[in-house]
């Protein structure tokens, strides 16, 4: 099977600070991959490069054989770790906008998922609670039939009930032929859904393996192994 996402000798420098150092990765289709590491380890930088909103200093990135740009953005669904919605827009208008710009977006699916939140579609985004805003952002991303879903810290800063909702939404709604790349430092919450795990620290990949292999070889859970590797 061809690699969906490929990074070859990718490095990124912010001034003199080395954010990524010679990163090599190959990820195939149909996997849920955890990008795991401590804060400041390079997860968000790597993700920004993959989704095409940051340019690497060195190396080559390809998604389905194409370098990140306007073409890949049509099949990569990205959930940033920031609030990216225009709070003056209504929920309905935001869904229409997604449908207008992304050919793979399903308004029907978005409205179905939104019914769980029990918020009126005409209400403005600024009237939503922080938790509901995050859920809406996730719904918008997961309502796309993308080839690669890139989710940056989707469960950080939300209560445990909301975490369950978010993980359930991800598992039940992603295109099964697609790959989901989830960045997080809350390993215990996501471990159960991961096919592969990548450990990243100081901009370098420490480990990339199947989740089952890590558990079998190390004789512990990924969460426990993560704590061991990244202990202060």
């Amino acid at each position: 099977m061809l690699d969906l996402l490929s990074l070859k000798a990718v490095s990124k420098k912010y001034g003199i600070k080395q954010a990524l150092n010679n990163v090599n990765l190959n990820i195939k289709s149909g996997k849920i991959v955890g990008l795991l590491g401590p804060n400041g380890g390079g997860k968000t930088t790597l993700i920004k490069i993959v989704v095409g909103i940051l340019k690497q200093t060195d190396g080559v990135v390809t998604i389905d054989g194409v370098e990140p740009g306007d073409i890949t953005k049509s099949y990569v669904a990205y959930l940033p770790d920031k609030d990216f919605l225009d709070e003056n827009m209504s929920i309905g208008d935001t869904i229409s906008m997604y449908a207008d710009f992304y050919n793979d977006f399903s308004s029907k699916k978005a409205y179905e998922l939104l019914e769980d939140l029990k918020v009126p579609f005409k209400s403005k985004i600024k009237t939503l609670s922080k938790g509901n805003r995050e859920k809406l952002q996730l719904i918008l991303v997961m309502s796309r039939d993308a080839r690669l879903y890139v989710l940056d810290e989707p469960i950080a800063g939300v209560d445990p009930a909301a975490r369950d909702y978010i993980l359930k939404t991800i598992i039940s709604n992603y295109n099964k032929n697609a790959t989901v790349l989830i960045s997080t430092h809350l390993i215990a919450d996501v471990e159960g859904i991961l096919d592969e795990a990548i450990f990243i620290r100081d901009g370098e990949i420490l480990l990339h393996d199947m989740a089952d292999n890590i558990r079998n070889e190390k004789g512990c859970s990924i969460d426990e192994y993560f704590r061991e590797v990244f202990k202060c």
Partner: protein
Amino acid sequence: MLGKLIKYEFKQMKFVLLVTAIGLAIITGIVICLGIVPMWIFGRNDIITETLAIFLTGISALIYLFILFVAGIGMYIYIGVRFYKTMYSGIGYFTNSLPIKRHELILGKVIPAVIIQTIVTTMIIASGALIFFGYTVSKDGFEDLMLNIARLTGVMLSDSGIRNLGIALGLTFVGISSIIQMASIIMTLFLSVSVGQLFNSNRILMSVIAFVVMNRVFSAIDAIIRFIIEVLVDKAYRYNGSAFNLIFMILTMALNIIILVICYTVSYYIIKNKLNLE
């Protein structure tokens, strides 16, 4: 995709445009009521009423000029802030993840901004014209209205040298030149914001500094070009004020086009290679 971007940009900006239009209509009404109607009612026949009318006209003229300044400059500030918010703050994550070319992204911001600014400028001119007509009518009556308009138009056209082109061509020239100038200011604003986002802190302050510096540099270049032209232009033209003004207007337009192209190119480079989202 560019069409969709422009559509959404207008949708987001229409509220501010509406508020500006209502604000201008109200202030125009107030100025007419306060400054022109008393002259109409009291006339200018006795000292007390004339003094009162002049006082009210003066006050309303000051308020009016202030409001025009706020409307004109305020819209530019709004356009700059909106560009920052939608391109480089949280919403920027959405904007920059859209499957559209970067040229479309910039044009999708510039075109609606220029159109909105043109509409606001047109509203300001219309408001000014309404007050001018009202003032003229209350002062000299209907009989002299057309004469006063002709005088004003004549002065404006001959001073700027446009009369040499003919009224229709002259006004078209002024219109195009104004739109290019607005586009150039807006693109300079966008470039300053793009430069400001390169910094990790004090981004707004750095954007303002970048804008001031760029403006000073462009003004200096403009002054140098004017000086060179003044030296080079034939004496026969130098003493013909209107022809000289026309040459300068064409030069200003050319300079604005160059500024527009430079700012667009540098902004494109920054968005493509130096994007630094919050």
